[in-house]
């Protein structure tokens, strides 16, 4: 198992390096001067552009800039925000807990709702209940997050006054954003659980279990559900990416702090170091989460690590 984890860890190094390189190159692939672009909106003078060029080291050759960027990134130095002049990493790390809190709460909602709908649909295959569950799942992937968020605010905050519409802190503030984001993600999980269960229920070991005279309940929970849920682990990893992206919109709708809102604001202000840092950190987090998922997958399904070694 340790060898498996080591192999996975090593394999993620080139990915992280590639992501860092892509983020660095993106800004330099654009035609024109990045310093001019950054100050275009605020109408920066020639002196301020020249100052920014020197400050960002844009006068050096590209390979020097790249080497410096890599070294600084390794040291955790992602530069300074153009507008606040605060270190990018510090700014992002301040916002990170809020986004993680939202993503985890949404993930919990998505897994509970998605698994529930999937099980209900599979157990009532080809019935009206199956159709309703799958209709809810399609609705989940079709409803724009910003719309469902606004509708919930309209209902639970403006009309019923049950929950606060915006802001931070505590379960009451987290409930609506997590529900909106979780619902959007639950559709994919519901469909996967349903199809996984339907496939597993046709396996020979289920027939064997029935032939042994086991109760349907035992067959379902011990033999079918356990095996059907294994692929869900992978999707949870992939959905984490969706949730990080979805957090961008959710945080804006509910005026929550977080990386998503920070990146959007940074884009609107053309604060490139902050955008660069935010996108890089989100990609690194996503890669690491998928690494964890890979490892936990091997714990859940011993066949995986045997195949790999």
């Amino acid at each position, binding site marked *: 198992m340790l060898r498996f984890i080591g192999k996975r860890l090593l394999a993620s190094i080139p990915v992280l390096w590639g992501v860092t390189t892509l983020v660095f190159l993106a800004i330099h692939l654009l035609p024109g001067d990045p310093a001019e672009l950054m100050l275009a909106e605020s109408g920066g003078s020639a002196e301020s552009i020249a100052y920014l060029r020197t400050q960002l080291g844009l006068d050096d050759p590209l390979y020097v800039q790249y080497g410096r960027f890599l070294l600084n990134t390794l040291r955790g130095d992602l530069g300074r925000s153009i507008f606040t002049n605060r270190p990018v990493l510090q700014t992002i790390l301040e916002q990170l807990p809020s986004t993680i809190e939202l993503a985890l709460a949404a993930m919990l909602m998505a897994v509970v709702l998605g698994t529930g709908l999937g099980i209900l649909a599979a157990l009532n295959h080809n019935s009206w209940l199956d159709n309703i569950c799958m209709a809810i799942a*399609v609705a989940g992937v079709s*409803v724009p997050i910003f719309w469902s968020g606004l*509708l919930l605010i309209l209902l639970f905050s*403006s009309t019923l006054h049950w929950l606060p519409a915006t802001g931070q802190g505590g379960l009451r503030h987290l409930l609506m954003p997590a529900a909106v984001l979780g619902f959007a993600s639950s559709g994919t999980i519901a469909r*996967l659980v*349903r199809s996984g269960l339907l496939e597993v229920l046709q396996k020979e070991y289920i027939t064997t279990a029935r032939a042994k005279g086991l109760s349907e309940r035992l067959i379902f929970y011990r033999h079918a559900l356990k095996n059907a849920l294994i692929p869900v682990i992978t999707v949870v990893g992939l959905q984490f990416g969706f949730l990080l992206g979805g957090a961008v919109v959710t945080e*804006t709708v509910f005026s929550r702090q977080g990386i998503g809102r920070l990146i959007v604001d940074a884009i609107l202000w053309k604060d490139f170091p902050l955008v660069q840092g935010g996108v890089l950190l989100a990609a690194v*987090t996503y890669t690491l989460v998928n690494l964890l998922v890979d490892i936990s997958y091997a714990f859940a399904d011993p066949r995986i690590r045997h195949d790999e070694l």
Partner: protein
Amino acid sequence: MTKKRRFPIPTRKGPPPREIPPLVTRRRLRRNVGALLGLFILATIVVAAAFAPLIAPHDPLAVAPEAQLKPPSAAHWAGTDLFGRDVFSRLLFGGRISLLVGVVAVLIASVPGTALGLIAGYYRSWVDGLIMRLMDLMLSFPGILLALGIVALLGPGLLNVMIAVGIAGIPSYTRLVRGSVLAVKRNLYVRAARTIGCRDGRILLRHILPNVLAPIIVLTTLDIAWAILNASSLSFLGLGAQPPTPEWGAMLSEGRAYMHQAPWITIAPGLAIMLTVLSVNLLGDGLRDALDPRLRT
């Protein structure tokens, strides 16, 4: 005396061919209630958007201060916005933009994505490695963050959003097509084409591409829904269509501040986005079931 054949004629043995006759596909599609419902809703939206200048009761950009924030009525079916503009007329014209954005973004994703997938799957070796590693890198950026990053570089605007959403969609096509090419290129007709001296370009476009088209069609359909949703999200965030363009995401964003006094400004465009995305998803699911029932979820 009959001449002895030097090469045996291949007989149809082994697994049945993957391709499903169009008639069967159509019959399966006709039986799928969800797909039919999706097709009906989508067709209605497309017709309404196409004939927007004829159907729209008002000019979508005409400002009327006296009709500010009016609730839905006989004169204004979906009410009016802050500037007294008719929300229903704006919805109809907005449909043109949202559908166009969806189609253009998917074209930007599918054409290069498919080409890269064909090349990677057909040539293998270092070209395959290079293309696929690049795709893996692009997939390392979660959700719409890649599109966000591209918009950050290109600047806000509808065209840039189409490009950004399109580029972010490329890897899924490359991966799908590459996988299909790897399976198809083992077929005898590909080897036969190579034997009779067909050039690579001809083999790829005439022999391989038509046989990997089914999954591409399914992905393209489902991707239109994804593109419309993402593009409207970016417009909602203020990075896409700019006022006074009647784009659904931008309309919703404009109406947000008046949600309590005039909820119709936000409800109507949101409903339009949801119905469009839902109909495309239903149709895409139906197409997938019809073209390849094994993929059924």
